[in-house]
């Protein structure tokens, strides 16, 4: 019986691979299903980022006249820079905010059907990822209209996101399990993500902070990803590979630890739901 829920890193990868069809189906259902029954359908998913980006551009270039401190840029760049960081953060925040209620919201999957519960965070991630891709398309559209072709390094974005994805998964597994036992987790998480939004260099470049404060921001796992995203999307800079490698390794450990925690504690789910 003990071998039923593997906790090894291999088990983590195998669970994803074995259930890839189901994950794909559920992601599709969730991403597209959100707009089920509405007249505009999938167009709504484009509408939101489009509107937000327009508003940001207006507010920050016309109202606040904000600048990114990189000198000599056009006013619209602030909104695009801001939005690129925000896309990354939204991916993180959407997953993390949903994590504590993933199991709670699917009691049937725990008690009534034989279901690989550990894939639920993957499904949430997939759906958040879908929204990020939509935002990215909108962002690219703006970029092309204003600046022309984006830098080649933009193709590296998927690699830059690898550590983020792994960290999100690890935290999601942990929070999904904790959320079952401690209902407070949902509230704690929403407070933390709101605060984190301002402790991540989204609205400002890291360099804008006093040098004494800068190292502290590296404790925030999002800092590196946000900075590197801007590097590849806008600044035509290669990511700092050693940092990236270290980060991938660390986030893999986080993912595995979260997975192991989830698998160890899931036996109790049915008892308290």
């Amino acid at each position, binding site marked *: 019986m003990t071998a039923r829920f593997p906790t090894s890193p291999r088990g983590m990868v195998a669970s994803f691979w074995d259930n890839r069809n189901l994950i794909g189906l559920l992601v599709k*259902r969730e991403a597209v299903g959100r707009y089920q029954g509405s007249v505009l359908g999938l167009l709504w998913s484009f509408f939101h980022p489009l509107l937000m980006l327009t508003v940001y551009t207006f507010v920050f270039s016309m109202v606040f006249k904000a600048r990114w401190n990189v000198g000599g840029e056009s006013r619209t760049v602030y909104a695009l820079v801001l939005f690129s960081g925000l896309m990354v953060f939204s991916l993180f925040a959407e997953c993390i905010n949903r994590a504590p209620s993933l199991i709670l919201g699917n009691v049937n999957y725990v008690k009534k059907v034989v279901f690989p519960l550990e894939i639920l965070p993957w499904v949430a991630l997939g759906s958040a990822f879908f929204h990020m891709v939509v935002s990215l398309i909108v962002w690219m559209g703006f970029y092309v209209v204003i600046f022309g072709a984006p830098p080649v390094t933009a193709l590296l974005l998927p690699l830059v996101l690898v550590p983020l994805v792994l960290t999100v998964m690890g935290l999601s597994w942990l929070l999904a399990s904790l959320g079952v036992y401690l209902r407070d987790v949902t509230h704690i998480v929403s407070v933390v993500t709101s605060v984190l939004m301002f402790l991540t260099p989204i609205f400002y470049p890291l360099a804008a902070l006093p040098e004494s404060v800068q190292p502290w921001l590296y404790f925030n796992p999002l800092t590196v990803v946000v900075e590197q995203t801007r590097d590849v999307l806008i600044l035509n800079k290669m990511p700092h590979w050693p940092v990236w490698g270290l980060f991938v390794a660390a986030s893999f450990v986080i993912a595995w630890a979260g997975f192991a925690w989830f698998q160890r504690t899931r036996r109790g789910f*049915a008892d308290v739901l």
Partner: protein
Amino acid sequence: MSSDVAIRVCDLSKTYLTYQKPRDRLLQSLLRHRRTFYREFWALRDVSLEVKRGEVVGILGRNGAGKSTLLQAICGTLTPTRGTVEVHGRVSALLELGAGFNPEFSGRENVRVSAAILGMRPEEIAARFDAIVAFAELAEFIDQPVKTYSSGMYLRLAFAVAVHVDPEILIVDEALAVGDLAFRNKCLEKIRSMMAAGVTILFVTHDISTLQLLCTRVVWLDQGRVRAIGEPIRVSQDYYAELVGHKGTPGEPAQTMLIQQDTGKALFTEVRLQGNGQLRPGDTLSIAFAVQAKEALGPLVFNISIYRADGDWVVGQTSREAGIYWPAAAAGEVRKGRIELAPLSLAPGDYLVAIGACSEDYSLCYALTDLSLKFSVRAAYPTWGKFIHPIRWIAE
């Protein structure tokens, strides 16, 4: 380990630990046995069961007997407290009506997802989709959200998916109860064809007739323990007899002790059931009786009442209707007789008998036994209703 075993359950126990707060459950897993935060409830105790490949096993029991818990443990949605469960083969489980369904989505979507949950690949699902919809008879509604479905439609769709994923083991929990007769027949036909194909089937139902018809074996669970495992008709009739309110243990020898009230007029000195009290429909139930007058009595009539063990009065007849009277008796005199019910036409169950002696015009009761005489009826074939009435069937 032989390969023809599909399910092996060994000394399975499940304790539900009821926690005051969910967080106590987490503390318990972290602190292990250093403190207890729970109260125990044993849903299953030391259940052992071996199901061979191709067997059809029915599970009987009252509400709360542990039937669903057993099925959940076999499916793996529940972690047993003690004991082991081995399952060999691809399982398709219908634990609750459309539990994997999302009410907001269309039938089509839900079929895809629940088939994928049951382990089917997308191309397999596509290949079988039409057969599933046809079986469920929902072609017109398949693109409607399932929240608009009736419970019968829900069941049809859920059942259709569960049986079309080519399971090696099918587990069904009380699902057949909601369908109409036509769909039930369809399900039974499908189950029969799956049986013929060698699928192992395990199901819970309160419908004893289905059980008697389909199963190769029946498990009777009572308060988390296995009360009996065996031949479907015998086990389900024993279960039924107890369900309707039997107080003693089934199969105990017929009671001969006389409990009666003293009327001052007469007393039964003997009421005896011939044989061991285990009868089959069509047998002769024979009861010998003797009553002794305590004072001078006029001509006597006797009566018999038979109650089913749940208190339902099924027979109440006197010798008066048949025109049989016993002559008047002086004080101390004994009047004897015999009652024969032949052929015995009562449906399987446990019964209690009372016999009375009355005055000729039935206005005075001279003596009356309590319901102290017991007998049981068991049939070798499935039966329904309360009586096996003598009936002639004429084919034309």
